């Protein structure tokens, strides 16, 4: 790709939605108010695993102020059927049963019934008055318990995929990738490292709880305002769950207070829709923080067995990775993505990677930033670190000797185009951080990480205003600064300042279909649509200038927001957009550019992280004291928001490594459903997060953009563990590395 000189892309303008967000004016999910609105609340299971014998809502209905009560009996019975492939898909029957339990409750907090009332207090009180008869079943709270012979089976009627099973099982799916000859590879290895790793179920931890408001009109149409990463998927999924046509559902995304994948599915919307229809009034439902922890979609706890074989010179000759992930109450963990990413940073002539999906009595998992990849990567990168120690090779050097590059084949099949893993490793090796001496009880760790980055469908509209400014309308909720990045790309094509391009997030009736804000795809794929829509607008502007000048459109070129005559029209005075715009009516009407794309996922993102940690050997408490993230972002459109993704993902990964975990009691009740004991990093827990953006252009994007948001959470688990290994002499195979665990391990190690 030729090196294009950018005027706006690569600068750091202030985001357009910024003032509303720093003044408190921006409307998030729970800020929506409609006249006559009722408040909804959801009654939830007190058991982790039980058959529902009966539900009696009469006492709730009798409470003054209660306007509607719904249970699964109000929902259509959608058949359970897997739609998708072995590595990803949806079962709308199960989605429906997750939104409202039908025959069984499958986790503590599973929704049983819902109430709409004139106040949240009354709605909650009514929920308490709903009487449920259960046949309590033994909860299955771990992979071991799920896989044990004679284990209670969550879904006895379900056929597993990809495995032969004698009788019902909690394993729902297996997929595998193999290449070469594994036995021969290990036989050829000089050194073999083999270890088993476990990671706990963790939550995305977005600060804004799920919230939605629904209005039902008597013509059968529903309007939904909600905090979501994908308004079109809310529209589609809600319609399927309620067995109505999607065109009856309009979804307007509010501002979204974080998602990280957790707001890619639905929980509240069909419930509020039914309550609104039944009561005849708008209904708002806002989850409490406790409900978010109990009944939204965290990511899997997992177990990974990793075996790595290498020659003395450091060449990897064999890798064998077996991944078991908890899906929660219904099938569909990210075992597939964990398997596809696990061995993708290095070349393995002989490999096998297997992923298993296992159901347990925990909340059904949802996407969480590079779903699955941090779990398998933790195992692989920990073993690579051990291998470097065993071989006495610098860990960055060892990685460089094996790192994938353009032309290498990924274990899941395809061949990489231009990628930046080696560049990030070289930058890491030369970074001052890597060379700084460490003090007492301190250690340094390095790890790499990979995520595919999605493509998928996007549409965009660029309309030119009569004052020569422009509006960009897309369908992606802005979760971290995407509005400004999209406006910058439109500004680049139109040749007008970023401030004169207003980015708008449309609803499902004002933009063409657009896949969700997720998969690190917005700046890449929606950006591509915006560029093409802006180019379409520019083409029209050239035609309009040609009309005014009475020349051919090919004799008009567009530079820096100004129409210039060329060829036979070179004598025309240049016409800036500001002059041209008021004349659009006279030359054929408004100019609206449009584009739609469905690009392939073709911009893999690689990163290398360096972590320094200090450990208190008497208490086991650790503190990350320095952290550097180096990532190939392709062309960085707005570097501040690229850095922000790198920093935020790194800190989420640090939390996962050190303190975050769901805790359960023996009955399957979550013991820490709040921010007090679900310990996410606070400001004083972390240092500044240094960033180095490597820009290896993505050949499939007009500006070379590749996705950024997910890769940053992939390396930290191992980077922190490898630093901990250096500081304490202990290889940690279990996360989180919380102080009691660290102290015990130091003791065991006899240091």
């Amino acid at each position, binding site marked *: 790709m030729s090196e294009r000189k950018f005027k706006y892309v690569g600068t750091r303008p202030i985001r357009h939605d910024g003032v509303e967000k720093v003044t408190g004016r921006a409307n998030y999910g729970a800020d929506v108010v409609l006249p006559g609105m009722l408040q909804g609340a959801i009654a939830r299971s007190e058991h982790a695993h039980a058959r529902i014998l009966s539900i009696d809502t009469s006492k709730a209905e009798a409470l003054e102020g209660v306007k509607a009560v719904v249970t699964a009996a109000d929902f259509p019975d959608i058949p359970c059927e897997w739609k998708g492939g072995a590595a990803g898909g949806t079962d709308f029957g199960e989605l429906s049963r997750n939104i409202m339990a039908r025959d069984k409750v499958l986790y503590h907090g599973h929704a049983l019934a819902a109430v709409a009332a004139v106040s949240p207090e009354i709605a909650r009180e009514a929920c308490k008055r709903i009487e449920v008869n259960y046949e309590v079943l033994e909860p299955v709270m771990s992979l071991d318990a799920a896989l044990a012979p004679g284990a209670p089976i969550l879904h006895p009627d379900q056929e597993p995929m990809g495995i032969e099973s004698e009788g019902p099982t909690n394993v729902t799916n297996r997929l595998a990738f193999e290449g070469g000859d594994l036995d021969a590879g290990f036989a050829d290895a000089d050194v073999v490292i083999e270890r088993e790793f476990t990671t706990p179920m963790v939550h995305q931890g977005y600060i804004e709880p799920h919230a939605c408001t629904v209005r039902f009109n008597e013509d059968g149409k529903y309007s939904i305002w909600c905090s979501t990463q994908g308004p079109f998927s809310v529209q589609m999924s809600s319609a399927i769950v309620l067995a109505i046509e999607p065109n009856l559902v309009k979804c307007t995304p509010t501002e979204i207070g974080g998602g990280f994948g957790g707001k890619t599915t639905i929980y509240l919307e069909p419930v509020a829709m039914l309550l609104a229809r039944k009561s005849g009034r708008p209904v708002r439902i806002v989850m409490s923080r406790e409900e978010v922890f109990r009944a939204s979609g965290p990511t899997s706890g997992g177990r990974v067995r990793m075996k790595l074989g290498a020659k003395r010179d450091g060449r990897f000759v064999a890798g064998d990775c077996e991944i078991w992930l908890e899906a929660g109450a219904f099938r569909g963990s990210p075992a597939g993505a964990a398997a596809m990413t696990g061995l993708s940073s290095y070349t393995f002539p002989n490999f096998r990677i297997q992923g298993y999906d296992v159901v347990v009595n925990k909340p059904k998992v949802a996407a969480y930033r590079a779903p699955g990849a941090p779990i398998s990567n933790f195992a692989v990168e920990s073993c690579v670190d051990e291998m470097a120690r065993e071989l006495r090779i610098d860990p960055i050097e060892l990685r460089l000797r094996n790192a994938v590059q353009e032309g290498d084949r990924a274990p899941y099949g395809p061949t990489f185009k231009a990628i930046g893993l080696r560049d990030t490793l070289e930058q890491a090796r030369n970074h001052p951080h890597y060379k700084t001496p460490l003090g007492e009880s301190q250690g340094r760790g390095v790890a790499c990480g990979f995520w595919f980055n999605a493509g998928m469908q996007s549409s965009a509209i660029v309309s030119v205003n009569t004052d020569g400014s422009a509006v960009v309308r897309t369908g992606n909720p802005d979760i971290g600064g995407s509005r400004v990045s999209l406006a910058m790309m439109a500004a680049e094509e139109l040749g007008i300042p970023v401030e004169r391009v207003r980015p708008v997030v449309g609803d499902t009736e004002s933009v063409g279909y657009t896949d969700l804000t997720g998969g690190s795809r917005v700046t890449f794929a929606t950006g591509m649509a915006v560029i093409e829509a802006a180019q379409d607008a520019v083409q029209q502007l050239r035609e309009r200038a040609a009309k005014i000048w009475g020349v051919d459109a090919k004799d008009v070129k567009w530079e820096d927001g100004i129409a210039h005559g060329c060829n036979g029209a070179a004598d025309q005075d240049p016409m800036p957009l500001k002059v041209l715009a008021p004349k659009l009516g006279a030359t054929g009407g408004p100019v609206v550019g449009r584009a739609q794309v469905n690009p392939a996922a073709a911009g893999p993102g690689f990163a290398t992280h360096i972590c320094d940690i200090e450990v208190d050997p008497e208490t086991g408490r650790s503190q990350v004291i320095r952290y550097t993230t180096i990532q190939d972002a392709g062309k960085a459109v707005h570097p501040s928001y690229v850095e922000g993704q790198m920093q935020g993902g790194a800190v989420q990964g640090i939390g996962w490594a050190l303190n975050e975990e769901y805790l359960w009691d023996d009955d399957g009740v979550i013991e820490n459903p709040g921010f007090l004991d679900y*310990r996410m990093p606070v400001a004083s827990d972390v240092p500044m997060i240094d960033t180095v953006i490597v820009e290896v252009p993505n050949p499939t994007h007009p500006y070379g953009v590749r996705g950024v948001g997910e890769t940053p959470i992939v390396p930290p688990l191992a980077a922190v563990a490898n630093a901990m290994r250096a500081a304490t002499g202990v290889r940690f195979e279990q996360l989180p590395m919380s102080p009691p665990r660290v102290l015990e391990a130091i003791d065991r190690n006899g240091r």
Partner: protein
Amino acid sequence: MLSSGYEAPQTVEEAVTLLAADADARVLAGGTDLLVQLRTGAPAPTAFVDIKRIPGMTSMEIGTDGLHCGAAVPAVEIYENQTLCSLWPGLAEATDLIGSTQIQGRATWCGNLCNASPAADAVPALIAVGAQVVVAGPNGERTLAVEDFCTGPGQTVLGQGELVTGFHIPAPAPRSADAYLRFIPRSEMDIAVVGAGVSVTLDASGTISTARVVLCAVAPTVFVVDDAANALIGSSLDAAALDNAATAASAAANPIDDKRGTVEYRRRVAGVLTRRAAKIAYERAKDRG
């Protein structure tokens, strides 16, 4: 109960009358425990009795006989008081460890004590400096040592109609000082896994003449560890004295396994914190010599 009452009495007598008449009314000081319990499922009280409008509840005074502090002075006013910080640095630090800055704008010693959590940060520090708590009730006022106030997790000596009105802390003796340390997994925002408050008084030669060691989060209530204090008394804080104090603290700890820590871990760290807090208190006392 869908709706609670709210009362803001202007005098202690009024508050006593309200509380005596209604066993399900609750005193509201900072509310940082009471309202959290309410949000996480505890039954709502019939009424909140907000004591912050009672003169004296939100003020403090430091004189020759020490500190008199109203029950509802928020944490931030306590640790921002420079005189208090210089006289009882450990107590100020403990108060500064309670929750976030926002919580410190509300939380009070009174609430920290009346919540009767074994993991209260201010309580061991109060006990270490010999604080007394003043209680008013239908039968008048009584004063008792802070260590005698809690009788178990969530349990106190308060009878119906009684409320805490303030604290008195005697002026520190010459060459004495306190320190408080707590252990949490993160750097902020957690509940103590273990906490240790220590105060020492030195004689003119720098030998420890009196000491107090108080632990939290390792027993049903915050408690005084005499064996650890005795290990310090008579020493100049040599290694053996520190080891003995730490060992005594670990031995006295009788914690439970829960989501915040294990028995074994809490015992270990009780010793570690006792040792570290003793060193800090000793150095401070020496500086005052």
